[in-house]
């Protein structure tokens, strides 16, 4: 790796953390002009920055507004890099189906989880909010998803998460997919109780957990 590439990767990462979209776009263009490896630009530049932003969020240095700004900036950079991406390097991505369970329209946590999953290398199918349990199951079957992410902010709707898990069992695909649950009222004990595979208190930790659990899923398969 040349010194210039290293510098650009470092700068890309910094400009995402610093929420500077113009600078990020400029850097991404410069990166492409130099014909550096685009996949690395995403993984070790933009996504690296987003990962740092996620850690700052965990450390309570950044909050939701900052995290959302960083993600916008990351996407601005992605818009520049993506068209130059070699198709082969994007193939064989694990797929994740995410959504807010039926009865709830609070989707901020789900949106963050989606961003973080994409950052860690998943292809994400977002079903949006207020999603009926059966839709998760059908979509996961259709795309061959490795992960289903269920989110809710409300106690009144969290039981729909258990419904999704029951439906997966009924369809005999429960063991093919990692089910992660999250949101305000959800806890590890609730996740255990309904038989979900994982829970994390916030989005970037949840995405890391998804990555680990998928590895194990593939191992045991």
């Amino acid at each position, binding site marked *: 790796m040349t010194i210039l590439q290293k510098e650009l990767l470092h700068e890309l990462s910094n400009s995402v953390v610093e*929420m500077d979209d113009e600078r990020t776009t400029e850097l991404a263009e410069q990166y492409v002009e130099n014909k550096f490896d685009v996949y690395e630009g995403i993984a070790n530049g933009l996504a690296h920055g987003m990962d740092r932003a996620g850690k700052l969020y965990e450390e*309570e240095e*950044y*909050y*939701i*507004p*900052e995290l*959302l*700004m960083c993600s*916008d900036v990351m996407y601005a950079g992605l818009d520049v890099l993506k068209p130059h991406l070699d198709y082969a390097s994007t193939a064989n991505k694990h797929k994740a189906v995410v959504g807010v369970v*039926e*009865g*709830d*329209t*609070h*989707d*901020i946590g789900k*949106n963050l989880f989606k961003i973080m999953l994409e950052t860690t290398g998943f292809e994400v199918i977002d079903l949006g909010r*207020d999603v009926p349990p059966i839709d998760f199951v059908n979509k996961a079957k259709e795309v061959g998803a490795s992960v289903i992410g269920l989110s809710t*902010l*409300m*106690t*009144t*709707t969290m*039981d729909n998460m258990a419904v999704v898990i029951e439906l997966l069992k009924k369809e005999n695909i429960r063991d093919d997919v990692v089910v992660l649950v999250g949101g*305000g*009222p959800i*806890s590890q004990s*609730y996740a255990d109780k309904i038989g979900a595979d994982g829970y994390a208190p916030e989005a970037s930790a949840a995405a890391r957990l998804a990555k680990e659990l998928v590895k194990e899923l593939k191992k045991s398969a």
Partner: protein
Amino acid sequence: MFTTKQRLRETLKGNKVDRPPCICPGGMMNMIIEDIMDITSSDWPEAHMNAKLMVNLTKGLYENGGFENFGVPFCMTIEAEAMGAPVFLGTKNTEPRVTDYPMNSIDEWKKLKNIDVTEGRAKVVLDAIQLLKNEDVPVIANLTGPISLATSLIEPTIYYKALRKKPKEVHEFMEFITKNLIAFGKAQLKAGADVLAISDPSGTGEILGPKMFKEFAIPYLNKIVDELNDFAKSGTIIHICGRLKGIYKELNDLHSDAISFDSITSIKQVIEHVDNKVIMGNVSTFALEKNTPTSVIESAKNCIRQGVNILSPACGIGTKTSLENIQQMVLAAKESFQS
């Protein structure tokens, strides 16, 4: 001997009473359960549009040994709907919710309607309060908090980003929202409500961080309380969701009589850091819905032991919660003065 209303009023004023009242305000802090719908033959979603059914439900809960207050409405969509957001009224078990946002960018607030309290579900709420008005049981008026209302009118991610990108426009939008909330709150209190409760689940310290909480949440919450203080004869309550850890200091700046909070926040820590508020909380709604009556009593007693002045659920309760569990929670408060 206190009446139910006197006990809550004196508690909110910071005076000594015989025991903590046990309340659930309504609004986002839902109190209505299926058991009560069945007992009173008044169901959701119809009750959200019908003052008589609304009254049956909140009165029915009180009369069957439930929380020691009346309170309407049972959702946080009245204001957003009156200002132009389409709302799905939900089912027997799920609450009404906004289905689309009337604004695409912050400056579009100028297109919004003002809340007209003489029509629609805003009027239903006022009619219900008039029917509920009485001498003995406190009636709680409920408002959706300013940031929660804002994020019911525009996609929350656009809103949260605008806090950084367009702070000036956001403040204009918040002024407009606050003016409308004051109008609806005043109408509820004039119709006969005794207490004002404001719940702001989207405007938490956990989401915004202390700096933005101070800039975008506190001033507007305070503006509402300041304007309505004289009308809320028995007092004012603000409920903030999520962990309060990062904003203990800021909570002292709120002008409400009471602060109510989530079960993930420790009562002891709030008492330690917030010295000018009546403390209300925080029986886990999860425990209320899923646990046995015996364990609910334990949770309630634990809250009282830790020092809450008002015993209440930590958030809105699920409709599948049993009446028995609520009754036991109220009993725990009633019996607490003996111990």
